[in-house]
């Protein structure tokens, strides 16, 4: 979250147990490719960074000539001139630092923007099975946590990391220039202290791991118990839960205390490392000064550097952990981007046609010019001889020995064959998990069959361009999803070019018009949060209107659940009936009226068709359909 970014660097000491990306090199290169779009801006940042770092380092070095040449001899006019020069250098540094920060913000935001867009676009291109195997929370956190991490690291940490290294190296160089002997002493001390803190931090990884694990357990327990709190209460399980939690909580407390303490100790060690360097430099410098081997100006400048030398080390460790965790985040984002998108090798497309009158009964379809919209559609099939054929869209759907499994192990549909003629209604009935929804998911190729074939107007659905296939199919799903926008926008979702009048007409046909008009702003009422301000029945009616406006030759209807009250049910029934008229309809049926009128009723059980026929023949069979319809179990 943008408001959670820290403004000050290096708060809180080094974070131990760095997260490491699995493939550091590849991920970094890929992130750099994104940054490459801003390469000139990056060059500008590098120049600014050098200027501001140089200015900072020069400031301390200036103490030497200031003290030796002007302050000690008392040349105040010269001091004034030198100070003006110093002020100029400082000012340059400040301005450079400002622009460096400013440009970097723009780069980071631009990069995050592009990555977010790429990720979203990629998500839109993923097949449904991808969403079955990834939870919403998991995908959401790619957009929120992970992209935020990347953005924050780019905005601050990367530059700070580089600048810390520059400052550190620069400081060492200046120290060497001022006094090689003092430099050697300081360097030796620094090395020892750094090794010490590295060894502490290595030891502390164990504690950090156990802290993470304990935290996971505590949070998991909270989620589970609070989520099931009503059950806890009903079973009087409160005491048990509290005492179980106390155990987990205490475990977390003790491991977290150790981990936090160790990270603090490292802060203390690193902080005082600078002070000890400073003190040692003061003693050694004093000694050298007494023996005339070091002038006062050099000594004070050197001391100034050694006072600050530890700071960049601290900062670099902090920023390194931020950058590494950003790389881990980037890797997670790239993983999603690399996932296999929905395959679409279909070549058959859907085109507008006009019919030329000729000898045949229907006439011959001719493809309409691109900007002409007719209400006639045809499949455009390219043939082997290079010509194209136009097959009129009629809505003839056949399943031929179709077998399907979601996971490749448990078959959900076994050897299904069925045939829907244009204009027929086919109803699927059966208990939960029998495979009703799966059948409809195969028609529109949300999933692809593993064995057998599904044809649409005689064409294998796998050879039809997916988007065109789906455009020819209307869907009303059991759980209705609406999008943020007005009621009108949501109806128009069915056909983006529909006029207001067409949308209102669709709503009227779907029996949705009357309730829409009663909404505060009528058709302009804004729907938020997946239609939270509408009842389930109202959402269903809008979904019907949405399908209506699309006006496809084939409809797939997953009927409303039984939890809708009778009055709304009747309203929806009327809408559904209007929608079904004159189309090929596949319906997962719950209402008898739908089933009774269906041309064919298919009873599914465990992925197999166990009965088929019309209402009367099936009732007469006294089989599963009879059972489901009457609620009578054969066992009784």
């Amino acid at each position, binding site marked *: *979250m943008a408001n959670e970014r820290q403004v*000050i660097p290096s708060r809180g000491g080094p974070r131990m147990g760095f997260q490491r990306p699995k493939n550091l090199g590849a991920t970094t290169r890929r992130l750099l490719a994104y940054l490459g779009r801003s390469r000139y801006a990056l060059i500008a940042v590098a120049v600014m960074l050098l200027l501001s770092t140089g200015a900072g380092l020069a*400031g301390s070095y200036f103490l030497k000539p200031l003290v030796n040449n002007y*302050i*000690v001899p008392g040349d105040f006019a010269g*001091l004034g001139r030198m*100070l003006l020069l*110093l002020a100029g250098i*400082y*000012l340059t540094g*400040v301005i450079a630092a400002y622009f460096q*920060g*400013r440009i970097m913000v723009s780069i980071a*935001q631009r990069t995050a*923007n592009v990555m977010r867009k790429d990720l979203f676009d990629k998500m839109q*291109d993923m097949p449904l099975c991808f969403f079955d195997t990834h939870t*919403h929370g998991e995908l*959401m956190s790619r957009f929120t946590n992970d992209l935020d991490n990347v953005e924050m690291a780019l905005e601050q940490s990367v530059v700070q990391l580089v600048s810390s290294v520059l400052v550190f190296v620069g400081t060492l160089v200046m120290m060497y220039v001022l006094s090689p002997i003092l430099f050697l002493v300081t360097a030796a001390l620094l090395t020892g202290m750094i090794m010490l803190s590295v060894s502490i931090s290595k030891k502390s990884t164990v504690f950090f791991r156990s802290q993470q694990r304990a935290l996971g357990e505590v949070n998991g327990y909270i*989620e589970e118990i*609070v*989520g099931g709190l*009503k*059950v806890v209460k*009903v*079973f*009087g399980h*409160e*005491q048990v839960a*509290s005492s179980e939690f*106390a155990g987990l909580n205490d475990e977390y*407390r003790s491991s977290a205390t150790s981990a*936090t*303490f160790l990270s*603090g100790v490292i802060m203390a060690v690193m*902080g*005082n490392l600078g*002070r*000890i360097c400073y003190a040692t430099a003061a*003693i050694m410098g*004093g*000694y050298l000064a*007494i023996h005339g081997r070091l002038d*006062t100006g050099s000594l*004070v400048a050197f*001391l*100034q550097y050694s*006072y600050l030398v530890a700071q960049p080390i601290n900062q670099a460790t902090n920023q390194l952990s931020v950058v590494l965790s950003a790389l881990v985040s980037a890797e997670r984002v790239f993983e999603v981007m690399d996932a296999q998108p929905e395959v679409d090798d279909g070549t058959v497309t859907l085109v507008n046609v006009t019919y030329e009158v000729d000898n045949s009964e229907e006439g011959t379809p001719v493809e309409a010019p691109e900007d002409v919209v007719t209400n006639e559609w045809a499949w455009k099939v390219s043939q082997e001889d290079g010509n194209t054929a136009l097959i009129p869209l009629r809505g003839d759907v056949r399943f031929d020995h179709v077998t399907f499994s979601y996971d490749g192990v448990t078959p959900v549909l076994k050897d299904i064959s069925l045939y829907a003629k244009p204009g027929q209604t086919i109803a699927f009935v059966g*208990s939960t998990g029998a495979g009703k929804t799966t059948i409809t998911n195969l028609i529109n190729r949300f999933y692809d069959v593993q064995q057998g074939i599904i044809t649409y107007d005689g064409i294998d659905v796998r050879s039809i361009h997916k988007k065109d296939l*789906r455009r020819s199919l*209307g*869907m009303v799903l059991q759980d209705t999803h609406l*999008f*943020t926008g007005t009621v009108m926008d949501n109806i128009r979702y069915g056909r983006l070019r529909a006029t207001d009048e067409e949308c209102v007409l669709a709503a009227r046909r779907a029996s949705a018009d009357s309730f829409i008009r009663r909404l505060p702003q009528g058709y302009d009422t804004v729907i938020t949060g997946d239609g939270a301000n509408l009842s389930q029945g109202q959402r269903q009616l809008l979904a019907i209107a949405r399908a209506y406006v699309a006006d496809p030759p084939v409809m797939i209807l997953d009927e409303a659940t039984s939890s809708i*009250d009778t009055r709304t049910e009747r309203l929806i029934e009327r809408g559904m009936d209007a929608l079904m008229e004159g189309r090929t309809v596949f319906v997962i*049926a*719950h209402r*008898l009226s739908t089933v009774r009128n269906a041309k064919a009723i298919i009873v599914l059980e465990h992925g197999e068709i166990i009965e088929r026929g019309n209402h009367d023949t099936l009732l007469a069979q006294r089989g599963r359909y009879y059972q489901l319809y009457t*609620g*009578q*179990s054969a066992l009784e």
Partner: protein
Amino acid sequence: MIKKLWQYLGQYRRLVVASPFLVAIDVTCELSMPLLMGRIVDTAIPKMDLNLILQIGTLMIGLALVAMFFGSMNHRVAAVASQGFGANLRQALFDKVQTFSFSNIDTFSTASLVTRLTNDVTQLQNTLLMSMRLLTRAPLMLICALIFAIVINARLSIILFIAIPLLVAGIALVVTRAQRLFREVQVRIDAVNGTIEENLIGIRVVKAFVRENHEKRKFKKSNDDLSGTAVRAGHLVVTIMPIMTFVLNATTVAAIWFGGRMVGLHTMGTGELIGFISYIMQILMSVLNISMILMMSTRAQASAERIIEVLDTVPDISDATPALAAGGASADSGPVVDEGSVEFQHVDFKYTASGKGENVLSDISLSIRPGEFVAIVGGTGAGKSTLVNLIPRLYDVTAGQVLVSGVDVRDYKLATLRSGIGVVLQNNVLFSGTIRDNLRWGNSSATDKEIEEAARNAQAHDFIMAFPDGYDTDLGQGGVNVSGGQKQRLCIARALLKKPRILIMDDSTSAVDTATEAQIRASFRNNLKGTTIIIIAQRISSVQETDKIVVLDDGRVVGIGSHEELLATNPVYQAICASQMEGVIVNG
């Protein structure tokens, strides 16, 4: 607010009090460094006194070691206190939440409670840690450094009193403007996340209508809006460090200018001047740190408010009212549920305790005999779930009373009352662990035989045994490894293990197919003869053979009787049946 939270520090209070003293020692040691260095440069070197250099130098190293020790002590203290505080707070919240009634749970929502117990507690815990590490340190540093600076040279210190207000003003200006922008950024972030979320939920609709490109365009717009605002906010924030550096540099230049003259006039030593410059940096860094900590603390404040809201909630159902001092019963015993009769006497109920809003139940009078098999039917919103929830006192009646086993439910100890009543909730959950662990919720000391018997009665035994690990099958968090219908049967078995006098099933077989459901009913009728069973069901087929059917409509009882009686006389029941005859033939 701090006073409220202070009590959760408990045994760690002393540590929090001790911390500033440890920090003070650390800071004093650290800050004496430039002062001592000044002595070396100004006194020892001109005097060529190597001994003095060594003395002062050793003192400096000693002070650094002392600082390291006390600094580490403070880190220890801070770690213990902050983690302890977090643990105390978490436990207090967890225990508090366990006392919540259903209506308390409804008010807060599960997700919000989880956030309060996890993120908000962590936020406060980190704030305490940071405060003990830095909050006391920054002001102490500021004060001590100022004192040292004044000790070195009071006149030169005047520039500090100009610099500090300048820096504060600069930061304040940026921060106030930035906060406004950040709120705007947050709104845009919400919009972007909203778009992503609704696309995740509605992905089937997007794909079915081939609206991928449409959604991409919509997203691009909100994404660009976000970036635009975030860039503006970011550009503002990046001014803080340059402002800080500018003030620092300007002050340093001024100090060298004025101080340099003093050195030239021998009213100040070179070392003192260098020491003074070091202090300038300490002072200004402290000012920056203080303002940043204050800015961060506003977030902690929001967390604290959310936590206190939970802690201050009074559970609206508790044991506190043993009104009927029945026959001098001791506090422990009280009445028990010894037979399964239930009686509603003129019960009114509304969800808002304030008494506003409409009645969900009005004037319900109903009597159920021990061992009766009762069904409750009615449309959505008729009040069926509410009615049964009053029996185990998950909610309290607004008027009238509910008697179980002849005693008002409010006169039972909650634990006693609920142990006598088995409830299978509509939205039921299983917990991580094995099937056996979950069933044992009903009775922690149940034998394997009892568990199996309960599972058989709920028609769950067969599918359990079909799992490779049988009763030891791990369910995963929230019972993800079983289907909806299986989950419902496990929940029924779990309630059966309580061997309750009264078993309430709120639409608990909706995902179970009709045949299995009939088997469950049959085994209930054969094996649970003495148990009062109250079911809520959608399907007429599920209820038609029960002893008694209660028809609810709009919060009122509009009919009680057998299927045949009601079918003959009751218009509401007739309507329900009619809608099902031409309506629901398959459920779910």
